[in-house]
């Protein structure tokens, strides 16, 4: 069976899988951005306890595999009476994992904001929270955006793992179709192309234009 013939027959399933992939991507992206902000700022906090918690979180999730974390959340947490639905478990594992990597980016970006900005905010008597929110974070965001573009591609790639806990994403559909038809080259080829299109034609240009917009908003374009 040719590739086009194959697509003509199976595109509805691949498309529905793609939607699930996009949904998981969106949910875990929101979660990981929130977590990385919290953890990144905690790593810079003056309180040793907050710093220690953030360091533990980051090292724990960067030091083990996403697959191990996913299985742990999905198979082990229920034993403690915490049953999580598979879609949520997938988003949670990916969000926690990528959030740990993102925390380092947030920390690095905040530290990269020029010293003078901190001092100027202090000079006009801004409270620390106000200074962070109105002066430092907006600039740190612009500094961090290019690295976040790469991290979001990693996140998109990570979503393929949720197929292993049978969330019906595009990878899961591909495996099912492969199991029924043995058209491996077509089906896995199609899956690869779908991921490539999502990453190269949607994610990368989107992040580029966001970078441009943010830079022009800050007047540093």
């Amino acid at each position, binding site marked *: 069976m040719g590739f086009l013939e194959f697509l003509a027959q199976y595109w509805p399933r691949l498309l529905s899988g793609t939607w699930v992939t996009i949904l998981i991507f969106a949910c875990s992206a929101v979660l990981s951005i929130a977590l990385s902000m919290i953890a990144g700022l905690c790593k810079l906090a003056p309180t040793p306890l907050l710093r220690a918690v953030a360091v533990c979180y980051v*090292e*724990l999730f*960067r*030091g*083990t*595999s*996403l*697959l*191990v*974390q996913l*299985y*742990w959340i999905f*198979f*082990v947490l229920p*034993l*403690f*009476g915490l049953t999580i639905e598979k879609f949520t478990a997938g988003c949670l594992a990916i969000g926690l994992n990528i959030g740990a990597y993102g925390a380092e980016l947030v920390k690095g970006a905040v530290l990269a904001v020029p010293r003078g900005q901190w001092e100027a905010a202090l000079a006009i008597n801004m409270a620390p929270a106000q200074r962070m929110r109105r002066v430092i974070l907006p600039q740190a965001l612009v500094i961090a955006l290019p690295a976040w573009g790469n991290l979001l*591609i990693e996140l*998109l*790639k*990570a*979503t*393929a*793992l949720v*197929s*292993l806990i049978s969330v019906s994403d595009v*990878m899961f559909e*591909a*495996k099912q179709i*492969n199991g029924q038809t043995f058209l*491996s*080259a077509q089906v*896995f*080829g199609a*899956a*690869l192309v779908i*991921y*490539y299109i999502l*990453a*190269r034609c949607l994610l990368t240009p989107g992040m580029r234009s966001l970078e441009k917009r943010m830079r022009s908003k800050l007047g540093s374009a």
Partner: protein
Amino acid sequence: MFKWDWDFTWQILPRLIHATGNTLIAALSGYAIAMVLGLALALVQRGNATVLRWLIRELIEFIRSTPLLVQVFFVFYVAPQFGVRLSPWVSGMLAIGLHYACYLSEVYRGGIEGVAHGQWEAATALNMSTKQTYVRIVIPQAIPLCIPGMGNYLVGIFKDTPMLSVIGVAELMHTANAIGTENYRFLEPYTSVGVIFLAISLPSAGLVNLLERYLRHRLGT
């Protein structure tokens, strides 16, 4: 409430340690493939063949923006369609080696481009051939620049080996799954796998950091 069973943990530990050996073998041999292949990819990208350069560039982008899991399935299921029978081990090594070769080629490229331009000119002035220049002048200076990136990807490849469990490579995750289904206990095997990963990847990441600092000190930057 589920209780942690220490007896069971001790009982399964030998099997897990044996599987850890397999994981390390998988990671190291995958990395060996990636190192060699990555160098070839990096050198082609610096060559004169424009079409080839463009093709390799696109291939690297493609492999870097699609999930390793899909690539593992692709290699494992598609190669037999072309009459090549690959064992899970071989196809796993090939997939992970190719994936990381693309990442390493970027590291190499960065390292080679980091060598000061004057070195090339000096080599030309001394009438060295291109090959001589690479082997005797450029690559020895590029290696220290590449070490940190290479170290990070070595830890990365180690953390990605659990993905090979899906095609039946008997590494750590695969063994933990087997133990879990044999005994209907997932808490101890999965948690132990997480601990083993932490115990290996945290010290190695620390070592990479130390090495990076040492090299920076030695290079005087």
